[in-house]
């Protein structure tokens, strides 16, 4: 009970203290939008064919003739009401575009994170437990190499091997092949929606499309995760309290799992937040390589055709997700480590 209230208090406090950063993000994107080449009024016009008067009206409506602070207030108001402007390319409001594409990006990112964690943590632990052994050298080699391969290159090479050479993987375009009908929309996560609909054929199709991009992205973050796990586990294994645990004759399992691993996971948790941020960035590259219909490829297409409202919306969305992720990591850390006080 008290633990719960402490956690809640901490979460509230953390959220409050992330508000300034969030505000900074809003101001930053506002400035970004005003520095952007072109006329902001054009983003909000109905389309590229909008006439001069229409743009002029919108200019007035948006208050672009007003002083900058007032514009900032209006901008904040717009964000508050969910008005992110309209995309020139799709002709849809940016908010609804982002909403329909976000699940694809999140499904990819989460699967990749899951793959990375279940690979990296055991690898790091094994390397630390057998320091200096063959497995340790292999893990360290993977770590050194893993951070050097650019995502877009590893993605393309995976396509070459598994699609072109071996033919295991389906055509690397999109979330499902054209022969599979999409499941009824519930969560937007295809794997979940197919499972809910009981369409296992479809589930397999979606999963096989997901495997390559998810592995590409996971490959990119396995190295830092394994590296930090190994280092944290080594620190934990060499610590005074572990020596105490051994001096008391605790079982090997208890010593390694309850005493060493639990302590070692704290830094891994911290780094997982940073890793998630890197993955949000890497999404842009992976979605492009695999023609994945997520928010990043949407923003990228818009960017390359000088359509800036989606870009701004995308940047805002990414920043908010990241703030949310950090908040989660922080709260989890607070639960896992009693030393972190509410302050």
């Amino acid at each position, binding site marked *: 009970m008290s633990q719960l209230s402490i956690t809640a208090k901490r979460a509230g406090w953390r959220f409050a203290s992330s508000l300034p950063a969030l505000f900074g993000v809003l101001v930053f994107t506002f400035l970004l939008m005003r520095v952007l080449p072109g006329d902001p009024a054009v983003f909000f016009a109905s389309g590229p064919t909008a006439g001069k008067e229409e743009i002029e009206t919108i200019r007035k409506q948006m208050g672009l003739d007003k002083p900058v602070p007032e514009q900032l207030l209006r901008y904040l108001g717009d964000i508050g009401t969910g008005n992110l402007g309209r995309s020139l390319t799709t002709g849809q409001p940016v908010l609804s575009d982002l909403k329909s594409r976000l699940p694809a990006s999140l499904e990819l990112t989460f699967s990749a994170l899951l793959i990375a964690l279940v690979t990296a943590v055991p690898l790091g632990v094994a390397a630390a437990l057998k320091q200096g052994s063959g497995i340790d050298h292999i893990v360290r080699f993977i770590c050194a190499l893993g951070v050097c391969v650019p995502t877009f290159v590893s993605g393309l090479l995976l396509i070459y091997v598994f699609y072109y050479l071996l033919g295991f993987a389906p055509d690397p375009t999109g979330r499902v092949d054209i022969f599979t009908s999409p499941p009824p929309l519930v969560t937007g996560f295809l794997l979940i929606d197919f499972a809910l609909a009981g369409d296992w054929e479809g589930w397999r199709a979606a999963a096989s499309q997901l495997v390559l991009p998810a592995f590409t992205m996971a490959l990119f973050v396995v190295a830092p995760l394994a590296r930090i796990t190994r280092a944290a586990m080594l620190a934990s294994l060499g610590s005074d309290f572990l020596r105490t645990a051994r001096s*008391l004759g605790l079982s090997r399992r208890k010593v390694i799992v309850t005493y060493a691993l639990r302590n070692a996971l704290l830094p891994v948790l911290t780094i997982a937040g940073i890793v998630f941020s890197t993955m949000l960035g890497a999404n842009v590259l992976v979605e492009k390589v695999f023609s994945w219909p997520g928010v990043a490829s949407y923003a990228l297409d818009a960017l390359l055709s000088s359509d800036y409202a989606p870009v701004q919306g995308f940047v805002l969305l990414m920043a908010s997700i990241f703030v949310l992720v950090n908040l989660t990591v922080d709260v989890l850390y607070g639960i896992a480590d*009693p030393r972190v006080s509410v302050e």
Partner: protein
Amino acid sequence: MPRNDEEVPSSGRETMVTATASEPLLAIDDLHVRFSTRSGTVEAVRGVSLSVAAGETLGIVGESGSGKSVTAFAITRLLDAAGRISQGSIRFKGQDISKASSKQLRSLHGAAISMIFQNPRGALNPIRSVGRQIADAIMAHEPISASEGRARALDLLKAVLIRDPEKRLDAYPHELSGGMCQRVMIAMAIACEPALLIADEPTTGLDVTTQKTVMDLVARITAERGMAMILITHDLGLASRYCQRAVVMERGQVVEQAAPATLFSAPQHPYTKRLVAASPTATSTIADLAPEGASAVPAVELFRPKPAPGTPLLLEVQKLVKRYDGGVTAVDDVSFSIAAGESLGLVGESGSGKSTISRMICRLIDPSEGEILFDGRAIGSLPARDFHRSEFRRDIQIVFQDPTDSLNPRFNAFDCIAHPLRRLLGMKNGSALTGRVSECAERAGLPSELLERLPHQLSGGQKARVGIARAIACRPRLLVLDEPTAALDVSVQAVILQLLDRLRREDGLALLFVSHDLNVVRMMCERTVVLQNGRVVEQGESRTLFSAPATAYARELLDAVLHLGGPTARMPEPA
């Protein structure tokens, strides 16, 4: 006070023979331990033989690098990966455990042999409640349920006299003081009633008063439960008070063993002699500390010309207050003074504000209130930020506690000593600077061939000498010594103290000696100020204060000091 009827106190080699005959609990024979390091193999323990009878308390005494802790870790086979037993046997209850499998060791650890460590907070798992950790210790050897484990943990917390044991059961180590953590560690170690308890420097780093209560507790518990104990310590006073027999180790070998009373009153081996002499006692003087070095100390009594009437005191501290952000008052209304050439001791436990005061006097930090007068001139109001330009900067110098931490890792010894000369006296590179640096180094007892070395290439004592040479380079009038020997071995401490005393006499330096070690302060200082929680509790002539303290706190501090040759193994009454 022998607790075991079979125990016959004797001295020298005979002890081992006696113990072997009466089938000891633990018998170590010709133990060698090797460490493989980057620069080759190092033999840390070289042929140690010793024995412990059931119920006996054996002290292993030695300075850093003597191999005493390595011996302890070898007994429990908890050496780190680089170390291994290369030769010899360790027989516990007649069985050789030096080659036991890890499974056998697991059943031995905690149940038959357990350990308590230095740095108690680090020895506990930071993210597990102490109740669970104690329960873990029990459940490793006894098939009991979690709730039984909890109940037993509670009993153990009561046994180690922790206040509010019910509440503490769910506390985490960071919520407890160092002394409390050590009690929890003791509770874990005795949880399964082992026959042998190995205590590795169990009170190092704790305050003197805590040190005493913790050691009294350990002594009482082991006595009550008939447990044997090996007490590993660098502190002869501790060994003399709590052990029935002590062995002295030097560079991996046992040089002497006997009952502490014999050992410390009539040491046989030259090393033991040096060690005993170097340990400050209630009556020793600076000259006693190192007999060979005695010639360095002038036999004449300190001669100080009476200051002309009207000459202000060298340093006057008036109603000094230091508050930190967040409302913590570290120093509260502290006043004292130092005359030219006088030495004043500042004594207190951790958190007493003694380091803060020394930094305010050195004008490294600003006081919140109060005044500091140097030579009758107010220097407290000059911001610390600008004090480097003050004419008094060269007059007030400081020697820091940790010799390693006080030297810039990128400066060699020469540059460290030359630094104040360059900055404060504006000396340029040349023969004058070189000459002055060599002179200071020589006065601080630092061989000139070491001047080219970087700090990490120097030993602790040598680093301390560099720090002292730097501090006296500009011929200051007041030298602040902030626990200058706390990080050093006693034999090194002895020579450093002699050095400081000699410098003081030769140069008429005034000293502000900050320390937690009352024996040292008594020898070094004419007057003493006792601090508690940032306030002055008592101040006066050292001679009076140490023989007849006026306040309860000063008396408590003095009582907690362990003296060589004091009552041996005086067991406190069971509570």
